[in-house]
């Protein structure tokens, strides 16, 4: 399937004016992943004719996703606080989804979460000793993408569920 992404000169100029990610600035969703999600979805929707996507539209999708995360997270945060807890957990997020009327996401997300938990349980029972040793030793994360908030990381490790211990 040819990756046909129509970008005109105008599209480029407008895209350039959109703020790019800089250190400490707005974190955005990775462009390649957003693009792949959008293109795959469009190819499912439109099997006969190929739909092209202007780069600005991809930026809009990416921005929408980012704002969605903010919205969902802050709703989940409210739910969490209302229960007098400090750590936002998966259930808070699920309840938040219902609260913001994204009901159709709940089932697939539950299934996804269950699958993740089962995989995680399988791996943990196999390597829990090794991981314990790792935690007691130095914490080494790859420099690029992984967690950087050491303090919060430590706290969420001792959090309620799903954490690495």
């Amino acid at each position, binding site marked *: 399937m040819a990756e046909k992404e129509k970008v005109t000169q105008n599209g480029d100029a407008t895209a350039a004016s959109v703020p790019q990610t800089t250190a400490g600035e707005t974190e955005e*969703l990775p462009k390649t992943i957003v693009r792949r999600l959008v293109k795959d979805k469009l190819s499912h929707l439109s099997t006969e004719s190929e739909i092209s996507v202007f780069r600005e539209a991809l930026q809009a999708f990416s921005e929408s996703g980012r704002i969605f995360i903010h919205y969902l997270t802050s709703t*989940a945060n409210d739910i969490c606080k209302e229960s007098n807890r400090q750590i936002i957990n998966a259930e808070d997020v699920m309840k938040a989804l219902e609260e913001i009327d994204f009901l159709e996401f709940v089932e697939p997300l539950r299934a996804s*979460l269950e699958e993740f938990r089962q995989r*995680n349980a399988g791996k943990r029972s196999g390597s829990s000793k090794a991981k314990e040793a790792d935690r007691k030793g130095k914490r080494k994360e790859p420099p690029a993408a992984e967690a950087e908030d050491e303090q919060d990381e430590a706290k969420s490790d001792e959090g309620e569920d799903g954490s690495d211990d």
Partner: protein
Amino acid sequence: MRQAGIYSAILPGGVSGKAGPHSFPLARIKKIMKKSGDDVKMISGEAPIVLSKACELFVEEITRKAWMMTMQGKRRILHKEDVASAVIATDIYDFLVNMVSDDHSANSEHEGLSTTPAAIMDLER
């Protein structure tokens, strides 16, 4: 042998930190989550997983709705205005209204934008 870190150890995707072919990297999701509010401090290990997947589903769904706008305009190129139209026509996307009003250019009304009641009802489904 290098022991995997907190995310990579628990994900089938391995050290890339992804849970599947289209999944967002969890560290990025977590960063975005933390910017959701001053009092968002602690997040469990599972919450970014759910958020990441929710975000995937959301991007797919808004793509679908924007595409419907493109189709209604009998076009083959999905414009930013189609995304804006989808937002305007869908109640639960109200949280995106500010994004749309910032980007939304005045000429969108002439871009094959369909806000007929039928079109809106379709999107509400």
